[in-house]
């Protein structure tokens, strides 16, 4: 009887102390991140881009501004009405850049969701069970890692056919190995801690230990990897569209706009500028945030 009454109470004590620790860890990271001006600039830049892109329908019309062709106003230079000019079909470049952001940012975030979910399961399983399971899973990941990322994504898109969903699948899958490695190594650094031992002693199930106790505390390096994955995906999706394996006409997408602009470079170079700057802004915001997070998580830089 006494044994029974002791177990639940010690179990809840473990959970409480663990929650306290989780909160305080995230809080200290946030406090240190706040001091890093570049990281906050990156975070704000990304937030502003997401807001502009999501609220586009309030001040623009997708069909009229970004898709409908108006051949009487082709190749207009930047003006009050068209701040970035018009393209070879007389479409508003600004509208296309803004609506193009929907695809790039959506694909970037969706890619992270896929690779993070699969990577977390694979990496955590490998680290938690160790031994043979770890060996097998990591050898499989080694095989995937030997294939260059872009090459992998291109092959998958080509096999499945070009569409947004397949694009996301291709890029998500090609990022899984890297994510699994990061999750595995950060889980390995947690697994020896006493509170994991305690949770196990209380009879907590493996799944609960992994997802409730280990992963939240191993989140630091994973978050850094998440920002880098978003950045890389934005570049890769534009590269795929650029070589004609991404979106198709008339969907606005940054890489696709650049591949159209490439044919007009001799006479209308202004078309090649705006989509490129949009990509740089999106990627840079994530890189700055990632760098800031890494510094904030680095215990050696703590003062």
């Amino acid at each position, binding site marked *: 009887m006494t044994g029974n009454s002791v177990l639940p109470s010690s179990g809840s004590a473990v959970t409480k102390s663990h929650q306290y620790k989780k909160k305080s860890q995230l809080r200290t990271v946030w406090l240190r991140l706040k001091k890093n001006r570049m990281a906050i600039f990156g975070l704000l830049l990304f937030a502003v881009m997401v807001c502009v892109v999501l609220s586009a329908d309030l001040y623009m019309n997708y069909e009229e501004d970004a898709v409908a062709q108006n051949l009487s106003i082709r190749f207009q230079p930047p003006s009050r009405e068209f701040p970035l000019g018009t393209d070879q079909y007389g479409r508003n470049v600004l509208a296309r850049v803004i609506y193009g952001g929907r695809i790039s940012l959506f694909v970037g975030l969706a890619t992270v969701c896929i690779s993070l979910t699969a990577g977390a399961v694979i990496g955590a399983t490998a680290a938690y069970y160790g031994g043979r399971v770890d060996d097998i899973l990591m*050898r*499989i990941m*080694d*095989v*995937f890692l*030997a*294939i*260059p*990322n*872009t*090459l*992998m994504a*291109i*092959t*998958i898109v*080509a*096999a*499945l*056919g070009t569409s947004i969903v397949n694009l996301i699948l291709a890029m998500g899958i090609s990022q899984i190995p890297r994510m699994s490695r990061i999750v595995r190594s950060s889980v390995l650094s947690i697994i020896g801690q006493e509170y994991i031992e305690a949770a196990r002693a209380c009879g907590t199930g493996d799944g609960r230990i992994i997802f409730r106790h280990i992963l939240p505390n191993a989140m630091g390096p994973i978050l850094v990897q998440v920002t880098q994955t978003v*950045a890389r995906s934005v*570049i890769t999706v*534009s*590269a795929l569209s*650029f*070589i*004609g*394996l991404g979106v198709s006409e008339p969907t606005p997408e940054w*890489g696709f706009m*650049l591949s159209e*602009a*490439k044919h007009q*470079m*001799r006479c209308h*170079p202004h078309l*090649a500028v705006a*989509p*490129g700057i949009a*990509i*740089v802004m999106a*990627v*840079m915001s994530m*890189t*700055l945030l990632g760098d800031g997070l890494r510094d904030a998580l680095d215990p050696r830089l703590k003062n």
Partner: protein
Amino acid sequence: MFGYIVKRLVMIFPVILGVSFIIFTIVNLAPGDPAMMILGEGAKQEEYEALREEMGLNDPFFVRYFHYVADALQGNFGKSYRTNIPVFQEIACRLPYTVNLAVTSTLIAIILGLPIGVLSAVKQYTASDNAAIGVSLVLTSMPDFWFAMMLILLFSLKLRLLPSLGVESWRHFILPAIANSASTMASLLRMTRSTMLEVIRQDYVRTARAKGAKESRVVFGHSLRNALLPVVTVIGVNFGFSLGGAIVVEQVFAIPGLGQLMVNAIRAKDTPMVIASVLFAAIIVSVINLIVDIVYVYIDPRLKSRYVTVGAKRAMS
């Protein structure tokens, strides 16, 4: 050490086998009928059936994969559906362009990225450090093909200094090499700077300074050598990837290298070509990884003992 290298070389084989299986599976998911593609629309039914049988397309998936591996082990990777030339012959004639591009762009990245990274760390928080960090941040955030387009805009169309397309002379390789080196250069710079910052705070660097060693010797002799390991990794990874084909940059500059071969093969659903290109890239990446590990030992002799004991243990058991 020799035993270690042999062991690692042998370990590349299962990886490549795995890669071949993955790519074979992915490529076979693609819709489309290769026999139909080779014959064209107006083919007779009997001819079509005969070709399907001959190509083994009626066999189950695993039988086809087994045949592919068996042929590949004898050096027969199939012929391109498009040109009917053996795929590795085609890869071999594209290879010089890609090697040229990969070597020059990696050299540019090392020549610029490494010293600027070192200086940036030594002069941390000065104006020049901030400038270097800023430029490298923009360069890592730029897609290489957009950088390439901007280079063409400036140097070919505005200043008319360099050609924008083709491979006729060495001048044609200047812009592609710069475009291809940008991201490697930037990540090399960032990596060199951050590892140097860690190393120059170490006790042995202070000791070197205290005993009156010249500043240049302290920086390049004592610090840089100890900061080189992660830097060499960055160089190796990027070099391996660009040897697999600078896919998008080759498109922009119309360079007939491996990247372009790959994209054309994918567009034409040229299955043997696609599989062979990816296999080739994977072999390159694996071999470069091995070379990087060997280079580690020359940079940091302490690592050697680890490899030797691994070998000795295996010999004993």
